[in-house]
């Protein structure tokens, strides 16, 4: 217990980096996921094929490989840099990798939502003369989002847990790295481990409860 108290400030600072990463990736992956799902249901075969390829490749690649590639491949070898400062460069590279990875799951969740919107809705939208983008934006997606609030919640929870893999992308500040660093000096410490686990639960459990509450509230009787 003493160890937890002694290292608490470091661990907390590390955890705040996880929270930062989560917020950035939540926004980026939701936007990118929505764009991808629009591509996957669009009337243009080229876009559909591009979306499908993206999903099949990214979803089946381990996150560790995605993050390691964004650090060692994209940044070190191909020279993609976001910032001169190494730690903030690593932060954006990890955000990019994690968002790209999470977006494929967001896209799959949204698409399962689109599949539940009843046929009549799309037909009615077409009947009153809405174009593809209009019907997607005003009719289909709003209903699809309502249906997939709970799955999107679990995608977000998985993403928050995945921020711990950031060290594979060279971002050495978040709590998994701090925990490893601390264990190097103290050895395995149960209080420290439980402390970080509880911190993650404090963030993820409310999201789970909130999204399932919201899903119930927004549920449509069909």
């Amino acid at each position: 217990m003493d160890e937890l108290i002694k290292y608490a400030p470091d661990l907390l600072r590390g955890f705040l980096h996880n929270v930062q990463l989560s917020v950035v990736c939540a926004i980026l992956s939701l936007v990118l996921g929505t764009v991808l799902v629009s591509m996957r249901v669009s009337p243009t075969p080229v876009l559909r094929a591009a979306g499908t390829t993206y999903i099949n490749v990214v979803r089946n690649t381990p996150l560790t490989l995605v993050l390691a590639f964004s650090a060692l491949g994209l940044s070190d070898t191909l020279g993609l840099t976001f910032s001169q400062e190494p730690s903030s460069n690593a932060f954006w590279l990890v955000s990019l990798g994690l968002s790209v990875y999470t977006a494929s799951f967001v896209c799959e969740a949204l698409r399962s939502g689109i599949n539940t919107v009843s046929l009549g809705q799309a037909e009615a939208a077409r009947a009153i003369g809405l174009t593809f983008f209009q019907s997607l934006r005003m009719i289909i997606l709003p209903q699809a989002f309502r249906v997939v609030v709970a799955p999107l919640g679990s995608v977000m929870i998985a993403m928050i847990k995945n921020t711990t893999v950031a060290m594979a992308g060279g971002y050495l500040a978040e709590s998994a790295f701090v925990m490893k660093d601390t264990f190097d000096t103290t050895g395995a410490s149960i209080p420290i481990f439980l402390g970080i686990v509880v911190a993650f639960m404090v963030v993820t459990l409310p999201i789970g409860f909130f999204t399932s509450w919201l899903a119930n509230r927004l549920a449509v009787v069909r």
Partner: protein
Amino acid sequence: MSSQANVLFDAPGPRARLRNNVLTLLATVALVAIAYFVYARFDAKGQWEGRIWRPFIEASTWVDYIIPGLLGTLKAAGLAAVLALVFGVVFGLARLSDHKWIRTPAAAVVEIFRSIPLLLLIFFIFYLLPSLLGGGDYTLIALVAGLTLYNGSVLAEIVRAGIRAVPPGQSEAAYAIGLRKGGVMRLVLLPQAVTAMMPAIVSQFVVLLKDTALGYIIAYVDLLNMGFKIIPAVNFGSLIPAAIVIGIIYVGLNMTLSALATALEKRSRRSRKTSARPIVPPGAVMGAGGATIAVD
């Protein structure tokens, strides 16, 4: 492409056809531009040089590095899959127990291990084992133990959902012909539930296989470690070709497993041996072909 999505747009008339053609053209141009940008970037950094790609057409690279790495990945995944399945069945059934003193602890174990970030769990086990058992190489044990506890907890939820998906009439009928609790579970519920939960279990194995790559971080010798640390160290500059090659292997393996899940899903939907429909476990997403996609 599901037929559902296609009703989003009508059979195109002349104007819509023109619009679609313009869109196709724009999309093609954009994709070609991206491809060219990547090509030019590779070219500028010398990534098309034959020297760095050559190792991958030499047998020694495959025999010495890639295949041993792949075997390392498959060993960890195989061990963890078997153990996680055992863990999942035990805890899934325990959560359905009639006794509160079995049900509650089992629920607590499952919920806790499901919500711990997997890498933290692997690290903890990795650092805990030497202090309990003395020095040695614990990378495989830590990786397999972490994967087992996490995926086992998810599988426990799948098992529970699968058994609850069997209509209550089945167990009522089984009790009515005089079977006891064990018999009802063993002879009636489980055989039907297995068909319903098989696609979800296979989808979870995709997650498990992908997560073996976390072994890279604790220096377990798997495909990622071989491909990303050792091959570029031996063949200087071959990082990107190595990433592409092992990426293709991972994607190929996982897509095969996903295809198996989809095939099982179709089969179980047709099956007349079970009255339970295929389940969507908590936290999973319905995929394109009908099989669930485990979120990770």
